């Protein structure tokens, strides 16, 4: 994997809106943004109602993913260009999710919805009609998905990267600062985790930092490239952003996203929790 395989620029996207076998997909938790105006021709995916199982806390299963993509008019041969709000959090999550189910031709629009809007590029309210396909997914590739036991076993042996804000990491806050603090589980972080907030990987306009900047960032924060890595946040979307930076942009080989993240770990009985600012590389 490398940057040109995984990312497209807004300029490229604008010139390829009508390219054959190319489907633009906006992914958000709140799809009112899409309804108010989206990249011309883009279809929408609702992170909450379409990508999550509506009963169990898990993804839709393979058959559910096949049904979803077929209904959206996305075929196995299509290249999917994902973008969204929140600095591409949910788009990065969807990217990881598409890879999980074996769709290789998937790319992220650098800067997502924010850059597109700030650039003053065209938005459209027309909802495209795409004909139904017969999509076939693969079995989940769990080499990129971490589960809780694996995370507990990774304490002190693998790189654990907590990508939440410092106040969430230390246990001061249970959710990002733009949300009501209604969570009931314990605060803190997984012992031995490094705190490298996802936002350090992004520029102000939502684009990813350069490979050199990213490499320097994770090196300085104490990430050991010779070890496997598990990234987590609160519900697994911000950590998808970091998973993307490490695995897709920098080409680190064994990187998993722990989608259970803090909402699962911080509610488990009997696991160790650390509070406070924790450790950081570079001796600080």
């Amino acid at each position, binding site marked *: 994997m490398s940057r040109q395989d995984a990312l497209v620029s807004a300029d490229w996207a604008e010139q390829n809106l009508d390219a054959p076998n190319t489907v633009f997909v906006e992914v958000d938790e709140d799809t009112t943004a899409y309804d108010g105006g989206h990249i011309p021709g883009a279809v929408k995916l609702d992170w909450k109602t379409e990508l999550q199982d509506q009963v169990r806390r898990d993804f839709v299963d393979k058959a559910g993913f096949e049904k979803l993509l077929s209904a959206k008019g996305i075929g196995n041969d299509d290249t999917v260009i994902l973008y969204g709000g*929140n600095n591409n*959090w949910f788009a990065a999550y969807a990217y990881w999710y598409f890879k999980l189910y074996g769709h290789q031709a998937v790319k992220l629009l650098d800067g997502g919805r924010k850059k597109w809007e700030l650039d003053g590029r065209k938005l459209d309210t027309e909802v495209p009609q795409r004909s139904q396909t017969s999509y076939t997914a693969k079995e989940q590739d769990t080499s990129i998905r971490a589960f809780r036991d694996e995370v507990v076993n990774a304490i002190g042996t693998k790189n654990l990267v907590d990508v939440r804000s410092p106040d969430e990491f230390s246990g001061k806050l249970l959710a990002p600062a*733009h949300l009501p603090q209604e969570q009931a589980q314990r605060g803190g972080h997984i012992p031995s985790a490094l705190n490298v907030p996802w*936002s350090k990987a992004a520029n102000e306009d939502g684009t990813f930092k350069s490979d050199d900047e990213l490499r320097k960032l994770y090196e300085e924060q104490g990430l050991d490239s010779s070890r496997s890595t598990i990234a987590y946040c609160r*519900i697994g979307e*911000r950590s998808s952003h970091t998973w993307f930076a490490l695995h897709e942009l920098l080409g680190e080989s064994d990187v998993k996203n722990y989608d259970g993240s803090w909402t699962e770990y911080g509610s488990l009985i009997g696991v160790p929790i650390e509070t406070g600012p924790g450790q950081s590389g570079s001796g600080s």
Partner: protein
Amino acid sequence: MCGAPEQTAELPAGTDLSKESVLVGKVLAGGSPVGGAYVRLLDGTGEFTAEVVSSASGDYRFFAAPGTWTVRALSRSGNGQSEVTVGGPGLFTTEVSVAA
């Protein structure tokens, strides 16, 4: 959930201002509200903490821990920022002007 909820001037039900610190305000350009601006909350070291999109009336809202914060707005009509100190629980109001 991690997605930013719709920004309104009214606080969400259940917000307890005797316990929580809430930062609110409007994004303005030449005195007029700017909707659709990207409003970023940066901590005392300039590090990014959270981001919301201002409502049509220019409103934004953050739940923040006590400390010194910078509220920075990016919009198609320009960027701007304001500083605010949150001393404890309660409602803190700060307007952010962006270059028109």
